[in-house]
């Protein structure tokens, strides 16, 4: 039966994925299944039954002509990803997701440290002997000390993945058999992501508690709460990245959900907006810190950007789906 499925899968591989076509495909499959089961019940051997069903399939062009569908030839020109390449890509993604997770966590930890040290300075616990003007900038040095290795990790991951750029960009095709293997494996890796998402979301939701608890001990303590909040968010983000990458990698190979060529078009705009808005947020953060010395509060720029950006993404996809 699997042979019949992958035969049909191959026949429909290069066709546009419209509702009409997927309906036709499932109709054909159902018909072929019926025929296969009847042949088997008549006592035909597996290979014989499969052979008859496939030989009586006919010519897909006849159907396409009737349905007025033209086959897009240009898709054919992409190279096919071999099983080894796909495995190697998945392995590499697993490794780099860990590195990227660490990098992001380092940066968030740096921001947390920045808030923490700034408050310590304000409370005059540390750096008493440093001149007043320099004092405010000292915690920033720690931030950059953590950002530097993070950037190193990002660049390293990027270089490692350079070889698979064509997969990242969707310029490949996938054999039907490999596709069905990967679809099965996607089901296996998804539960880990769900657990990760739940834990991460719980951490995020609980994180503001740190501020409330801190505020019980006075205004200064609530700033330390912010520092703890950021650490909790850092942990959550690490979990999101490391558990989310595997299903994402499979979806990328299968070109489904957010990696569907249609969907990717709208993601392009979201990506472009993200490319402007986030560096801008970092600029505002650094500017208000260095120029106005607002390190203790400047970090709010990130959650605000996050919420606005999330809102924009949601709004944009609703508009588009209509």
């Amino acid at each position, binding site marked *: 039966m699997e042979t019949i499925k992958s035969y049909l899968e191959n026949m429909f591989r290069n066709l546009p994925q419209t509702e009409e076509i997927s309906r*036709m495909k499932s*109709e054909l499959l159902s*018909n*072929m299944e019926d025929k296969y089961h*009847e042949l088997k019940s008549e006592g035909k051997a597996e290979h014989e039954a499969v052979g008859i069903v496939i030989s009586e399939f006919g010519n897909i062009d006849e*159907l396409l002509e009737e349905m007025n569908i033209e086959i897009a030839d240009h898709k054919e020109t992409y190279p096919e990803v071999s099983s080894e390449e796909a495995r190697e890509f998945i392995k590499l993604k697993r490794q780099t997701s860990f590195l990227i997770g660490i990098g992001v966590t380092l940066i968030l930890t740096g921001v947390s440290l920045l808030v923490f040290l700034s408050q310590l300075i304000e409370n005059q616990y540390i750096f008493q002997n440093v001149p007043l003007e320099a004092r405010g900038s000292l915690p920033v040095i720690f931030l950059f000390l953590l950002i530097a290795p993070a950037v190193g990790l990002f660049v390293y991951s990027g270089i490692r993945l350079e070889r698979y750029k064509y997969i990242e960009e969707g310029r490949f095709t996938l054999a039907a058999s490999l596709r069905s293997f990967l679809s099965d494996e996607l089901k296996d890796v998804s539960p880990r992501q769900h657990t990760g998402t739940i834990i991460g979301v719980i951490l995020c939701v609980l994180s503001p508690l740190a501020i409330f608890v801190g505020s019980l001990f006075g205004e200064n303590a609530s700033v330390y709460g912010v520092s703890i909040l950021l650490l909790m968010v850092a942990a959550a983000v690490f979990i999101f990245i490391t558990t989310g990458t595997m299903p994402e990698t499979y979806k990328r190979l299968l070109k489904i959900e957010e990696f569907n060529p249609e969907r990717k078009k709208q993601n392009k705009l979201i990506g472009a907006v993200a490319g402007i808005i986030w560096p801008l947020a970092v600029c505002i953060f650094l500017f208000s810190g260095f120029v106005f010395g607002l390190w203790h509060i400047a970090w709010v720029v990130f959650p605000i950007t996050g919420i606005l950006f999330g809102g924009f993404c949601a709004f944009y996809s609703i508009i588009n789906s209509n």
Partner: protein
Amino acid sequence: MISSDVIRGYNDTIILSLLLEGDSYGYEISKNIRQITDEQYIMKETTLYSAFNRLEKNGYIESYYGEETQGKRRTYFKITPSGITYYKEKCEEWDITQKVVNKFIKELNEYGNN
């Protein structure tokens, strides 16, 4: 087995005639064709579904989802009044076609017997 080129113009007629007996779904129709013709004509899957597509677009048949059996939801087809009219026209057409072609077939037989 019959060449599909010869019979092409009458695939629709064959399907409509089976639907006159009652609503049916893809596999049942192809199985009936096979049985009625003593396996002399086996309609290919793509031929069958091209015909369904064409007949439905022309309003000669309608499709609906049947009751779920063994976890499967089949698409059933039903002949419409205009489908019946079309079927009658095709039958008349075949009658004439048959007579016309037969005239030449007979002549050829006589010629061959000599």
